[in-house]
């Protein structure tokens, strides 16, 4: 498993008595897009935060590029530079323009010269289609544009892996598409991505693997076809059914080629 960029073994996190997740094993290979789905309160977001050390796991191991990153003596700032993070509520720096948001890490962390940082930041904004909004402040941008700046800000650091924490959950429905479009483009460019999302259309079409998490552990993982159309675990089936009911109808367009329009399964009362 040496080709995995990110390797998680037996990861565990609790807040006091409250167990958030446990026994998490996960591998993310170079260029892979993995989507984590599951009910809210399952520990998905906390898992992402543990991976980039914004919060600390209580047990288990996280390896990035063959280096154990959740160990004493690790330079956490250096680790975070290599992991891009996109937040549900964007979290752009409110007092800085889009360009300055993207530049900050380049000048303050990578110690780039101003002109060089500006150039790099502009090209990242271009990548997410927002070069013309470079001098707008977050308050002057739509939610979708803010999130794309958030993605550009993370990309600018040239991360080994990008973490997305429900990047479209705070967006109006008509703005979701532009963010998913950027994410899809990144996946096609070969970016390694770990996404927590409820966007099943995106998961189905872009993910190499879907991971279903519930009550703090991974219930099932597999290819989109297997997981969405032939889920093994009754809880996976039930969750997928619910989420299809909730979001399925309004989701962008028809399923990709090769998939049936309707899931082949129905919730089975006996199993639930």
């Amino acid at each position, binding site marked *: 498993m040496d080709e995995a960029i990110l390797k998680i073994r037996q990861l565990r996190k609790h807040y006091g008595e409250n167990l958030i997740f446990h026994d998490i094993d996960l591998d993310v290979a170079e260029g892979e897009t993995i989507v984590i789905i599951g009910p809210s309160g399952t520990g998905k977001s906390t898992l992402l935060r543990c991976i980039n050390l914004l919060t600390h796991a209580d047990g288990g191991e996280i390896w990035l590029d063959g280096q154990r990153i959740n160990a004493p003596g690790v330079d956490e700032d250096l680790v*975070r530079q290599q992991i891009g993070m996109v*937040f549900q*509520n964007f*979290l*752009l720096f*409110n007092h800085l323009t889009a360009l300055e948001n993207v530049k900050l890490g380049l000048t303050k*962390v990578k110690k780039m010269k101003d002109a060089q940082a500006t150039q790099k930041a502009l090209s990242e904004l271009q990548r997410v289609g927002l070069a013309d909004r470079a001098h707008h402040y977050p308050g002057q941008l739509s939610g979708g544009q803010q999130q794309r700046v958030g993605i550009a800000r*993370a990309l600018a*650091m040239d991360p080994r892996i990008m973490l997305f924490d429900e990047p479209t959950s705070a967006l109006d429905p008509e703005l979701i598409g532009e963010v998913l479009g950027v994410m899809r483009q990144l996946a096609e460019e070969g970016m390694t991505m770990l996404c927590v999302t409820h966007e099943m259309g995106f998961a189905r079409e872009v993910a190499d693997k879907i991971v279903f998490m519930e009550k703090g552990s991974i219930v099932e993982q597999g290819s989109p076809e297997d997981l969405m159309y032939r889920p093994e675990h009754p809880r996976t089936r039930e969750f997928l059914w619910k989420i299809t009911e909730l979001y399925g109808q309004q989701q962008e367009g028809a399923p990709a080629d090769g998939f049936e329009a309707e899931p082949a399964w129905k919730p089975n009362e006996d199993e639930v």
Partner: protein
Amino acid sequence: MNAANFLQYIASGTAYTLGVTLIALPLGLLIGLVLALVYVYGGKAGSRSMQAYSIVLRGIPPIVLLFILYFVVSGAINLSPFTAGALALGIVSSAYQMEIIRGAILSVDAGQMMAARAVGLSRLEAIRSVVLPQAFRHAIAPWSNEVAIVIKDSSLVYALGVPEVLRRAQLIGASNQNYLLAYGAAATIYFILVWLANKSLVGLEKRLAIPGSH
């Protein structure tokens, strides 16, 4: 003594009033900023000790502290009344300015710090580049209150014999028995100073306002 000389005598105390204010305010800001950072980011011990500092200093009349600093400290170090008064007012003000800055820091969404750390900024750099620039903008309005208070409290140094506006008004009022005119002139000077300070801070707040946010 004609009216012009009379007023000029009082007004020339403005230099001392401004001098005391311009020492006390930045001193209080500097100490207040450092202490606010200890308060917010210094863990339990930090916040406890800062709470104590705040309670003690805010619980004592400024003039009492002024006397303590002048008569106790100047026994060891040679301080002029002007310097002692300005330093004492600065220290008093630091407790209030600490509270203002602390409140402003706490009003910045915690997510801002998280996002800065996620990019790879160190905690200190995140505070410097992300939290404080936003906190300072929030602090301007409450800070203008403190500016007004320090300008007015600068009159307390008259008790140490510093010939500032109030001291001069008292002297000249006593010498020609026109107290109303003397104190009226002093009041007008303080009022104008406070008014100008507030006006320029409102201007500063507008100028620094972040486009697109409320």
